[in-house]
């Protein structure tokens, strides 16, 4: 662990800024995600607050040099706490014409545009659909344009390292990183160390990339580009790291396994944008984590159920289309009353929809997407780091109440990264389970004899003598769990299953709201809109408007005081990346005329958009 980077980087000769939004854009092959990732890492080490937003092209690589083939990465960093990856970049790095074409529209007027001049030749311009060269036709007059011969200088730099043309060309992203690092006073060491670690087996590659990084840095200095400084933010004391939502979610599941003293079992089938959780968990076998890549989502859920019956914390991770397929299995888990976690990383729908884009349109599906009366708890993270909490909380509920729990994350949270104050393991909740070890009704074992407090049934796992029992999807007699077709028993069991879930409201935090005590408008959100709503409200307040906001983290059951909170305000506005799903639930449950602000574009709300929409309502 490095402690915060030396200060000399923030030299006095630098122009001070409180926040900067930079977007790196290039061909899928140009390694923009890596560049952004390294810059972010240095920025984190430097001590700024930050938020990032990777923007992948469609799943399949488009031909090099074309607009659909462009991949981008945006970072927002500042000397104060920020909430979003930023609306419009003030700085755009475009590695080729296609990247320029795809992103120039977003660059703030007067913004900084840094291009790799070498790539602006005929073929690339054509591929990008430019009839004339934008660097020459004056179309960029609205921006401060820095043209740099990145390709040639890179090739020049790596010559002595004897790299092939292809590999050499691949290093130009390090040159770009060097330039930007100089401009914003980012330390190079972390990236150098990282390169040396990464290419340990191929020192010549490491050396070449380091050389390019330094070359870019030197270029920035000698070309006397304006240098900026963004002072470190005053984050709460603690140890920080950067995490993406999927990473945090995987860690949260492992933490749940450790804190629950129960082995972790993942049954999953790859699907964008959920696959990385499977990838991450597969790497931690030394925690006893079992991961199976199942033949499909139904099998994945089935395996998790089987593992849960066998005494493991059964988990299955997926995205929308996979959640559809798991519906029947989730219904079974509800009938069996076994602890299982179903993670849904929401993406653009319906059907295959927009696999690489984000959306919040699975909420009602998660609530009601099963035949019969089949309620289950739903937890939703609201920032990349909070995915850790969501996983742990879902596990706590699943284990305590013997029920499947759905975690609703989304594509933005999954891939976005933010600094995370690492929790002290000692401070994590103890959620250890108690398995049944002895008969519970004079000598017999009744698998559906419920705990008075939680209404949950005992968890008796194979290997425990004397507790042999059978469970199944047919309706069960209360207590004994034997098959029962009795009408009144069915009514009772239906009530009990609902009551069990409902009772959880007593066991979760009440809904908090903040803002002006005399505000008449409440902005109610859930999930990844947290940052955008926060930023929009902050701006409105800066404009002297009164407004309050609350964010729901438990979507079923709702926090017990939700009704009261809503009742305090004249207007309840619900911004969602869907057509009004939480709004519908709130209207039904509390009969408040919740106003929905829907956004179904596959991209997160921009704080400014939201600010404008809210402005009309306050």
């Amino acid at each position: 662990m490095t402690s915060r980077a030396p200060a000399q980087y923030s030299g006095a000769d630098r122009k001070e800024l409180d926040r900067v939004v930079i977007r790196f854009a290039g061909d899928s092959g140009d390694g923009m995600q890596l560049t952004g990732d390294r810059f972010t890492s240095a920025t984190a080490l430097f001590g700024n607050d930050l938020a990032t937003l990777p923007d992948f092209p469609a799943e399949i690589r488009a031909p090099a040099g074309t607009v659909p083939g462009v991949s981008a990465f945006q970072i927002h960093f500042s000397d104060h706490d920020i909430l979003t990856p930023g609306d419009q970049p003030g700085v755009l790095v475009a590695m080729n014409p296609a990247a320029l074409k795809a992103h120039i529209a977003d660059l703030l007027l007067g913004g900084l545009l840094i291009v790799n001049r070498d790539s602006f030749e005929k073929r690339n311009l054509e591929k990008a659909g430019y009839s004339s060269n934008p660097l020459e036709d004056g179309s960029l007059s609205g921006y401060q344009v820095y043209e740099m011969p990145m390709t040639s200088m890179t090739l020049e730099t790596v010559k002595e390292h004897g790299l092939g043309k292809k590999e050499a060309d691949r290093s130009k992203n390090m040159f770009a990183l060097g330039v930007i690092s100089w401009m914003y006073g980012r330390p190079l060491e972390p990236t150098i160390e990282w390169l040396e670690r990464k290419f340990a087996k191929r020192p010549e590659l490491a050396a070449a990339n380091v050389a390019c990084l330094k070359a870019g840095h030197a270029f920035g200095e000698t070309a006397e580009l304006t240098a900026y400084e963004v002072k470190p933010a005053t984050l709460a004391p603690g140890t920080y790291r950067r995490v993406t939502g999927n990473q945090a979610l995987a860690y949260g599941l492992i933490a749940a396994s450790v804190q629950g003293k129960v082995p972790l079992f993942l049954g999953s089938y790859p699907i964008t944008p959920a696959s990385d959780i499977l990838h991450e968990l597969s790497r931690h076998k030394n925690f006893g984590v079992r991961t199976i890549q199942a033949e499909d989502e139904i099998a994945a859920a089935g395996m998790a159920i089987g593992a849960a019956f066998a005494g493991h914390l059964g988990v299955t991770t997926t995205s929308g289309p996979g959640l559809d397929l798991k519906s029947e299995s989730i219904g079974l888990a509800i009938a069996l009353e076994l602890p299982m976690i179903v993670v849904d990383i929401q993406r653009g729908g319906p059907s295959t929809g927009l696999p690489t884009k984000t959306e919040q349109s699975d909420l009602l599906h998660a609530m009601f997407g099963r035949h019969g009366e089949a309620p289950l708890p739903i937890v939703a993270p609201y920032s990349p780091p909070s995915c850790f909490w969501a996983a742990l909380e879902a596990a706590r509920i699943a284990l305590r109440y013997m029920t499947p729990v759905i975690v609703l994350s989304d594509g933005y949270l999954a891939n976005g990264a933010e600094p995370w104050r690492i929790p002290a393991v000692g401070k994590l909740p103890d959620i250890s389970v108690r398995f049944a070890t002895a008969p519970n009704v004079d000598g017999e074992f009744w698998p559906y004899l419920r705990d008075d407090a939680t209404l949950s049934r005992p968890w008796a796992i194979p290997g425990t003598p004397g507790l042999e029992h059978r469970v199944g999807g047919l309706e069960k007699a209360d207590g004994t769990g034997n098959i029962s077709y009795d009408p009144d028993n069915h009514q009772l069991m239906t009530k009990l299953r609902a009551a069990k879930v409902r009772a959880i409201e007593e066991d979760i935090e009440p809904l908090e709201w903040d803002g002006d005590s005399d505000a008449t408008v409440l902005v109610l959100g859930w999930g990844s809109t947290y940052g955008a709503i926060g930023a929009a409200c902050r701006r409105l307040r800066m404009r002297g408007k009164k407004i309050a906001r609350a964010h729901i983290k438990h979507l079923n059951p709702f926090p017990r005081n939700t009704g009261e909170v809503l009742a305090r305000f004249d207007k309840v506005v619900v911004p969602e990346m869907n057509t009004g799903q939480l709004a519908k639930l709130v209207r039904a449950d509390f009969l408040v005329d919740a106003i929905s602000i829907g956004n179904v574009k596959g991209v997160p709300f921009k704080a400014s958009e939201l600010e404008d929409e809210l402005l009309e309502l306050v």
Partner: protein
Amino acid sequence: MADGNGNGFEHQDRGITEASSGVATLTRKDFVSDQEVRWCPGCGDYAILAAVQSVMPELGVPREKIVFVSGIGCSSRFPYYMNTYGIHGIHGRAPAIATGVATARPDLQVWVVTGDGDGLSIGGNHLIHALRRNVNLKILLFNNQIYGLTKGQYSPTSEQGKVTKSTPFGSVDHPFNPISVALGAEATFVARTMDVERKHLPQILRRAAAHRGSAFVEIYQNCNIFNDGAFLALASKEGGTRNRIYLEHGKPIRFGPAGEKGVRMKSDGQLEIVDVSEAGEGTLLVHDEHRPDPSLAFALSRLAEGPSQPTPFGVFRAVERPVYGDAMEHQLRSAADKQGHGELARLLAGGDAWTVD
């Protein structure tokens, strides 16, 4: 770790290594649950249940270490009648659910009971993938060539042209041969027997239980309500002696009342049925369960087009291959050895954390 829980959480040890109910003393009765058995009078399922319950005590596995998993169907009610752990799952998914049980807990003996519809229609994919992975499961497929529970529609094993509720003019689809399907799916143990086989059925069950990995057993089962007599040519006293071909490892394949018929492999690789007297015993095909190449077993599975002809019974194939759960277990252990037991704090700290003070 022997308890099959690479991370050795205490509770697991408790659950698993604690003095078990013991096995020496077990009898058939110990495996009879308190649930009233509900199949139609005369259903072949009764005989299979009796056979399983009678074999269980011999296996030396304590009751609490046995799990029966099923899907939906008449046959799938099976777990309720076994006094072991059990899951009556959803239609077709038993192999997947059982894979979860067996992979989470290699210390358990996991049985799957399924039907021709449950296992080969809706559940076909899970079945072939479980076999491919060689998950440690004993899979009993009750093949009555009909959908019993839903009151008589044809199934993927029903003969073509079958008239049922859903095919009043006769079915137009060609059936699966479950043994061929299993062999095409890389199964390591494949066998066939029948509900009325008083001796052979228990033998095969013992063999399946003894096989480490996926053991697939097709059991011809009479549904006397919706498909009565489907296996008459093999079940009837006379037909049975004429048409049942018992496969025995290392033995030339002979059958018939006096073993007067035999199976021979022609030079072009085609099997044929011959009169032993004419062909001579020496020319007969000698059965080889353990052959790494499943082709011979496959050829034997094609000997009969359906249960109306001389049909092989017994073990078609029995070979060793790494077991899915064991392999995963091994990875967990070696990971723990190499990287050391997982330490949460270290995991969370990650590679490049920084402190703010």
